[in-house]
């Protein structure tokens, strides 16, 4: 049985006196864009909401940080760092960044020809934004613009 995260997290936050995180419930069927070309020709972009930054970049703050970081896809993984409100989910990815920022597998699959290539820059943000308005009006448009600038054909999205 999969873990009931929403119930568990709500109960835990309530017990600790934290404001509840309000997941957005989608009530309409999702939009759909078919692939425009074979996967093996696709340029793949990536977004991780694990609060990834490169050593030398500014990290994240924990109250509705709607900013994102532009991370060169050839960044050595030992230079990747993570800061995220729910730090209890970070220990593994702080040891091996590929847990929540799987850039090395994507680069390998580009070498193998499974995908066309990986965008020159991939992205991260700190996912725990409590304001739906800020996600829709600030974060999502900024991420969209960033993916367009990288000319990606598909977006690989890795939640924390």
């Amino acid at each position, binding site marked *: 049985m999969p*873990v009931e*995260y929403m119930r568990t997290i709500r109960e835990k936050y309530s017990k600790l006196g934290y404001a509840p995180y309000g997941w957005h419930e989608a009530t309409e069927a*999702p939009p759909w864009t078919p692939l425009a070309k074979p996967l093996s020709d696709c340029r793949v972009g990536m977004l991780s909401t694990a609060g990834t930054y490169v050593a030398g970049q500014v990290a994240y703050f*924990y109250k509705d940080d709607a900013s994102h970081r532009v991370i060169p896809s050839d960044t050595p993984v030992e230079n990747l*760092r993570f800061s995220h409100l729910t730090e*209890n989910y970070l220990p593994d990815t702080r040891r091996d960044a590929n847990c929540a920022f799987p850039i090395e597998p994507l680069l390998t699959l580009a070498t193998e020809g499974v995908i066309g290539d990986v965008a020159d820059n991939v992205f991260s943000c700190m996912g725990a934004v409590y304001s739906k308005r800020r996600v829709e009006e600030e974060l999502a448009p900024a991420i969209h613009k960033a993916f367009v600038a990288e000319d990606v054909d*598909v977006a690989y999205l890795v939640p924390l």
Partner: protein
Amino acid sequence: MCLIARYLEARGIPTMVMGTALDIVKFGWPPRAVFMDFPLGHGGGPAFDPDQQLAIARQALVAFEGIQNPGEILPLAQTWPGGDAWKTATADQSAEDVRQPRDMTVRYQREEDRHLAEAAAGD
């Protein structure tokens, strides 16, 4: 993440969400997702297992061509090393929560990162 997936997809970019929390992904109803019954924070796979990490990414990317129904969540044939013991720990309400305060203080993983960022800002 599901909000962002829907936003991108509506503007012409096909998306794939690497789900590890099935209830949260169902609630957010993204256009395409895969599901692995893994602890949160492991959408790329377990630490220091490049073979499984590669297998996961391969299956998820191939699912861009495999998933044809909007909203489908494809379970990946992947098992967490060490079985389901992690679920007991996750469900333990008494486990300490290590959250820092929700404020505007920038939280670096390492103190040296703060010095590097400040040096870069001073250039």
